[in-house]
């Protein structure tokens, strides 16, 4: 009895090792390619939220890292991309995280012009419930377009909530947590931009983007 338990336990461990090794190898083989795909996708998204006529630089090349857990929702440096025209900053695309979604972190990117007006918001990555919370994805619903041209006065702006909480943004039937987290993330990023505008837009590019 005891012997078979040890034997089975060891056998399971061997299989676990083997399976982990398999996944590790595939992960290593595909890592660079996936990174590259994500960069391409990012470029496509940035292109959508900051219109071409506004700027004349390559967005992914002027990138700064911001590390602020309260504003961006994660205790890690996240990239922001600055759009310039004739070397003057005109807009910024801030990557942020909504940490309190229904299922894991929601990564999003917010385009803001120098007047503090939202140019556009897009979801980069999420694992919200299909059919309920995934309306934050532009492929599923045009909900994110509701942020366009919005701006914020101060922390107490009543409009920056879902309608259920008295604000200006629709919630989804059966899924209030997702839009609530999302609105909060956009709001925090916007407030952060408003109060740090001058230092942000004059920072030198300091993050390497391995875009090919």
């Amino acid at each position, binding site marked *: 009895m005891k012997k078979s338990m040890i034997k089975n336990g060891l*056998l399971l461990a061997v299989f676990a090792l083997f*399976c982990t090794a*398999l996944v590790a190898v595939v992960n290593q083989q*595909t890592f660079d390619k996936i990174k590259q*795909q994500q960069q391409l996708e990012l470029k496509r998204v940035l292109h959508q939220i900051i219109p071409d006529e506004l700027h004349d630089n390559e967005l992914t090349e002027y990138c700064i890292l911001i590390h602020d857990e309260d504003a961006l929702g994660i205790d890690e440096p996240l990239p922001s991309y600055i759009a310039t025209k004739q070397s003057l900053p005109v807009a910024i695309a801030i990557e942020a995280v909504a940490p309190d979604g229904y299922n894991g972190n929601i990564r999003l990117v917010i385009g803001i012009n120098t007047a503090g007006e939202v140019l556009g918001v897009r979801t980069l990555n999420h694992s919200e419930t299909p059919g309920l919370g995934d309306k934050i994805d532009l492929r599923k619903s045009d909900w994110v377009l509701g942020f366009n041209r919005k701006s914020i006065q101060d922390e107490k702006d009543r409009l920056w909530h879902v309608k259920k909480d008295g604000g200006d943004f629709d919630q989804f039937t059966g899924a209030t947590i997702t839009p609530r987290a999302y609105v909060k993330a956009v709001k925090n990023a916007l407030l952060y931009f408003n109060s740090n505008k001058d230092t942000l837009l004059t920072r030198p590019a300091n993050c390497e983007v391995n875009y090919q």
Partner: protein
Amino acid sequence: MNNELNEYKTIALQGLWKNNPGLVQLLGLCPLLAVTATLTNALGLGLATMAVLIGSNVLVSLVKDFVPREIRIPVFVMIIAALVTCVQLLINAYAYGLYLSLGIFLPLIVTNCVIIGRAEAFASRNSVVKSAFDGFMMGLGFLLVLSVLGASREILGQGTLFEGADLLLGDWAASLTIHLWQVDTSFLLAMLPPGAFIGMGFLIAFKNIVDKQIADHTTTPAVTETVTRARITKVS
């Protein structure tokens, strides 16, 4: 030799028709109903499931002699989970558009009962080659049901066929998209899960009608098969 060939024929027939995972075993209903809104998505998930099914059947068949019965299920689950993760990484790297449109259903292949069902019922009792063939045929059966459902829902729902084929097959495939007619608003019932349930019902009914026709026309009863095959009736 003849016997051998017959056996492969039986496996093929089981996977494609008699014991079709979609129509008869009713396994993997969750992805089946959720992603079949377009033919492209249906094909993508079908191919991914087929790849996992073949891989898991082969691996399970390879290790069946070392794995004691008591721990076979955790071992199968580990193998399947590792394979699904690998397929997910590969699709993420080489078919990014498809990865984005399949979303959460890709990792959810792991919960598709067809896969563990075939591992337990077939691969753990048969040779590697037969198991691979069984995985292929079961996967193909599943893929066909997904495709028929996906195509009919896409035609009814948005009047197109093969919308977004370039996500799956690369840029050249963009020209495969056929616009059958222009709809101002898509026919929602076909696009949403209820449409999938209804379409699925019609497919099963159609299969039953065909089966009945065949039974009526055959005067001599078919030779009874002695191969015992576990029929799994659990619905995922």
